[in-house]
């Protein structure tokens, strides 16, 4: 029997009792609609949760320079200078799992405004990408500095809430100038409040400027305030720093070497280094590939071959990431369970009605067999009816589910996310419900004896 005729026969049979068909379908409609709506609302919430957790820095990878060791004495992470801004550019360009990258140059010093002063926990010289890496792009006030500010080492900065409170109290800091060491820096923006991080450190106790500003204007003049090893590095790059144009009042502790002395003790030519590179993986599952890609890339760029140990370290937020993935997985499983239950209930409804229908149409089955329907034809006919019921029900259910999730998102402002996967799953599941629960009645029909069936009252 051709598919078209089979479908037509099924539709004719269903149309003969349209109300019953509709009521039977209702089980599937409600089941599928519930699945779709819950998947979309659930996906929305789980995306919202993910976003929240991601804003805590779950997707962040911290690339630190490696460890220096002299005669068996190691100096701890960050004691050699191996990372350059070019490394950061290369990571962004060549590691597909990485979404954004920012370099960080740290300083720890006093910030002065008027008669108040404060030592922020973090003084970070960075790029505008830092805000997107840390998911901090919405500013409370003002605006962020730009790549152009980075290129020209502009004396601008963004302040965290805590710094604003300590230096400015209740007034707005926008447009005011604060002094970092002896450099006057204009405040152009205030960051949103972020609170403490996982370790209890106040993340709002922060000052952000272009990294060139910290590197060439501030640190260049305040090396003594930073640790000894970076002081050594900084002095050697000092030759043409802008800070020399605005000389520091601070006395140098060491005598300036004469040119003969310098020629006798040649310093290695150093590149411009950064203290760390902060990279954000595109999503939580992409963290491991991102680590692999960054490692391969940096080993290549730093010409490390064979078993030479890495001259850098990559840290990720494994704990947070684990929490995030397990939360999401749990949510998905929970929804799946509910979905299964409602579909099974719908399927049992289908089976029930199909059994009634087979009994009711025994004579019709007998007649069809008498005029030459093979058992397989009867089986297929009833299966087609059940699957048609389920597919039509599934389609209506998808529309209803999408509709209600749309309503929920517009009226209640719950986050929802359309899920193509859920729709495909709903179609597949409703078709399989039709086959699974339609099979027994159809099989029963196909096994009828035509003589008995024709005589059935």
């Amino acid at each position, binding site marked *: 029997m051709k598919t078209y005729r089979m479908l037509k026969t099924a539709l004719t049979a269903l149309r003969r009792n349209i109300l019953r068909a509709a009521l039977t379908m209702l089980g599937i409609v409600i089941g599928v609609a519930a699945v779709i709506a819950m998947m979309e609302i659930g996906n929305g919430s789980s995306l919202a949760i993910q976003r929240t957790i991601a804003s805590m820095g779950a997707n962040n990878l911290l690339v630190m320079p490696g460890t220096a060791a002299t005669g068996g004495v190691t100096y701890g992470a960050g004691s050699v200078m191996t990372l350059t801004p070019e490394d950061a550019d290369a990571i962004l360009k060549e590691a597909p799992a990485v979404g954004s990258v920012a370099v960080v140059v740290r300083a720890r010093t006093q910030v002065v405004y008027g008669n108040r002063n404060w030592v922020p926990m973090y003084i970070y010289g960075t790029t505008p990408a830092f805000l997107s890496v840390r998911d901090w792009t919405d500013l409370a006030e003002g605006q962020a500095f730009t790549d152009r500010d980075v290129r020209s080492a502009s004396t601008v900065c963004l302040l965290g809430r805590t710094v604003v409170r300590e230096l400015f109290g209740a007034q707005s800091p926008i447009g005011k100038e604060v002094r970092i060491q002896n450099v006057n820096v204009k405040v152009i923006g205030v960051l949103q409040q972020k609170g403490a991080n996982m370790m209890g450190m106040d993340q709002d106790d922060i000052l952000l400027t272009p990294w060139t500003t910290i590197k060439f204007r501030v640190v260049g003049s305040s090396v003594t305030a930073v640790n000894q090893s970076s002081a050594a590095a900084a002095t050697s790059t000092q030759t043409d720093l802008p800070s020399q144009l605005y000389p520091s009042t601070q006395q140098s502790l060491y005598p300036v070497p004469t040119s003969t002395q310098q020629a006798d003790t040649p310093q290695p030519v150093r590149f411009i280094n950064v203290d760390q590179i902060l990279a954000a993986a595109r999503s939580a599952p992409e963290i491991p590939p991102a680590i692999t890609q960054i490692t391969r890339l940096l080993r290549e760029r730093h010409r490390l071959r064979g078993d030479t140990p890495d001259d850098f370290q990559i840290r990720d937020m494994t704990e947070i990431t684990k929490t995030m993935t397990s939360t999401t997985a749990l949510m998905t499983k929970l929804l799946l369970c509910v979905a299964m239950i409602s579909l099974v209930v719908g399927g049992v409804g289908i089976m029930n009605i199909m059994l009634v229908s087979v009994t009711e149409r025994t004579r019709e089955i007998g007649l069809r067999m008498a005029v*030459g329907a093979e058992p397989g034809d009867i089986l297929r006919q009833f299966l087609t009816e059940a699957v048609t019921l389920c597919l039509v029900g599934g389609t209506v259910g998808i529309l209803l589910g999408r509709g209600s999730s749309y309503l929920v998102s517009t009226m209640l402002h719950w986050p929802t996310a359309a899920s193509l996967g859920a729709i495909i799953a709903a179609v597949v599941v409703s078709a399989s419900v039709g086959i699974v629960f339609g099979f027994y009645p159809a099989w029963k029909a196909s096994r009828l004896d035509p003589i008995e069936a024709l005589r059935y009252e």
Partner: protein
Amino acid sequence: MALIALRNIHKTYYLGEVDVAVLKGISLEIDSGELVALMGVSGSGKSTLMNILGCLDHPTAGEYWFDGSEISRLSSKHRARLRNRRIGFVFQTFNLLPRTSALENVLMPLNYTKENLTEQEMRRRAAQFLERVGLADRSEHQPSQLSGGQQQRVAIARALVNRPQLVLADEPTGNLDSRTSEEILQMFQQLNRADGITIILVTHDPGVAHHAHRIIRIKDGLLDGGSVDPTRGGAA
């Protein structure tokens, strides 16, 4: 040549402990183009014989030759194909599909034909047979909108739609008044005469049986010797 030849057909039902022998050795031949009445009181084995003749059931023992091939041991699938192409059925209760047009009813057996007819060909053929039974103008009517005689004529068109060699009519006039019965019986006679279709009328009504060329009587699972044409029936 004989279209149908039964050789010593037995049918026994095994109902638990008791074996009920319904047909106890029936042999008969029906030629192509005959119009035969099969008569018997209820319980005589008439229906069982009809089921075997109609290839709905197979005998416990004996041979059934249909158009030159032995078919008593065919699988249910092959019997279904045989019924579809070569045997038409007309029932006492018409057995039309409810809420389905006359045309769709007539067309229904074509769905199961392993022949690739297009939708148009199927419809044309069904319409042709509806016209044949004089219901061309009722093709879109549903059974509930037709009289008993018209319903039976739709059923006859359905039986003919696959151009069978044999039409089995089980009490075709049992639910009709006498005038309509006469019309239906004349239609059978006309089909038999014009198209040479072999027709077996199963009935207990002598009035109906008289329209046939030959009457086969069955009694207690055996042919009632008196009415069997000795040249055709009997053991071969």
